[in-house]
């Protein structure tokens, strides 16, 4: 396990540049996926008569795709400000789980870096960064670059959608499938052993049932926490390890 020393950051411009470039190289599938979604959000915002500067402001201050969609829909239907804020909180609570998992790979890193990094934790950047942290020598600067490139593309595409979104044909070149395909590949990367395959299957089954039975987005946190716990217990039992560890 690597450990970046937070006190002595090497001042090597070339290596930092390489790390940023590596991050950008990993981020492009996210950007490809964000673009049509950002456009779609912009179109909806424009239909809800939300001005373009407000859309840009929202993408900068919030940076959370699904919550922004919900916000636009709620604004359009005249929902109260309090209910929009509460819904945003609940919808984005799942990121606390992702933040916890990322902490394993950012041990001892200084708080300023963590505070900037936290801003960019989304489903997509989390999935890409976790895979990289697990598989190769992935620098926290590359991870930060992934977050911020994705954020930049998100801001630009939501603004673009507000201005010219209604002139762009829907679903061109299967681009709507970009993020699903990315999730499929990242899921394949995560299938390290039978325990991970079992956890994936359990999570899928619980998520579908939860999604069908309970309205809202709680299925993501509910299914992933239950499946991880079941997978963890199976692993522990199979290994026959002592529960006292």
């Amino acid at each position, binding site marked *: 396990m690597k450990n970046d020393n937070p006190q002595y950051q090497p001042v090597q411009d070339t290596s930092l540049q390489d790390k940023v470039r590596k991050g950008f190289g990993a981020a492009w599938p996210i950007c*490809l996926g964000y673009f049509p979604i950002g456009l779609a959000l912009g179109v909806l915002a424009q239909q809800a008569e939300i001005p373009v500067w407000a859309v840009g402001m929202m993408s900068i201050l919030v940076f959370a795709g699904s919550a922004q969609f919900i916000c636009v829909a709620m604004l359009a239907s005249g929902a109260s400000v309090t209910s929009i804020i509460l819904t945003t909180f609940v919808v984005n609570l799942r990121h606390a789980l*992702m933040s916890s998992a990322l902490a394993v790979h950012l041990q*001892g890193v200084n708080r300023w870096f*963590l505070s900037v990094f936290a*801003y960019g934790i989304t489903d997509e950047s989390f999935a890409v960064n976790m895979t990289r942290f697990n598989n190769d020598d992935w620098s926290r600067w590359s991870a930060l670059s992934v977050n911020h490139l994705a954020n930049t593309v998100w801001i630009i595409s939501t603004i673009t959608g507000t201005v010219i979104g209604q002139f762009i044909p829907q679903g061109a070149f299967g681009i709507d499938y970009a993020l699903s395909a990315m999730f499929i*590949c990242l899921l394949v990367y*995560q299938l390290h052993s039978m325990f991970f395959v079992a956890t994936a299957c359990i*999570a*899928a089954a619980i*998520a579908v049932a939860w999604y069908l039975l309970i309205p809202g987005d709680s299925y993501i946190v509910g299914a992933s926490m239950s499946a991880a716990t079941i997978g963890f217990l199976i692993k522990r039992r199979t290994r026959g390890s002592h529960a006292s560890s």
Partner: protein
Amino acid sequence: MHLPEYFLLFAAMGLVTYVPRWLPLLYLAHRRLPQWLIDWLSLIPVAILSALLAPILLTHAEPRTLDITQPELLVAVPTFLIAWKTKSLGGTVIAGMLFYWLAGLLL
């Protein structure tokens, strides 16, 4: 709504989005994590990915119903195989988009 109202709304939304992303990271990155927690957290990515993906592939939104005949699931099969064989994220994304586009033309 005008600028101050928009600003207050988005700032509040930003705050409630940021804090859950920030606090666990800040807290856990400076604690010695017990092994069981590391083991449990190592299963979180695969579980979250599967939980995000399964309803997209297997259900229909509004109203929420089980639907195993939609192109999303059909396209996922070759996309999964490409990912499995090539281990290439970029290649899988392009292939997935292509399959989805073809499915849209053919089905």
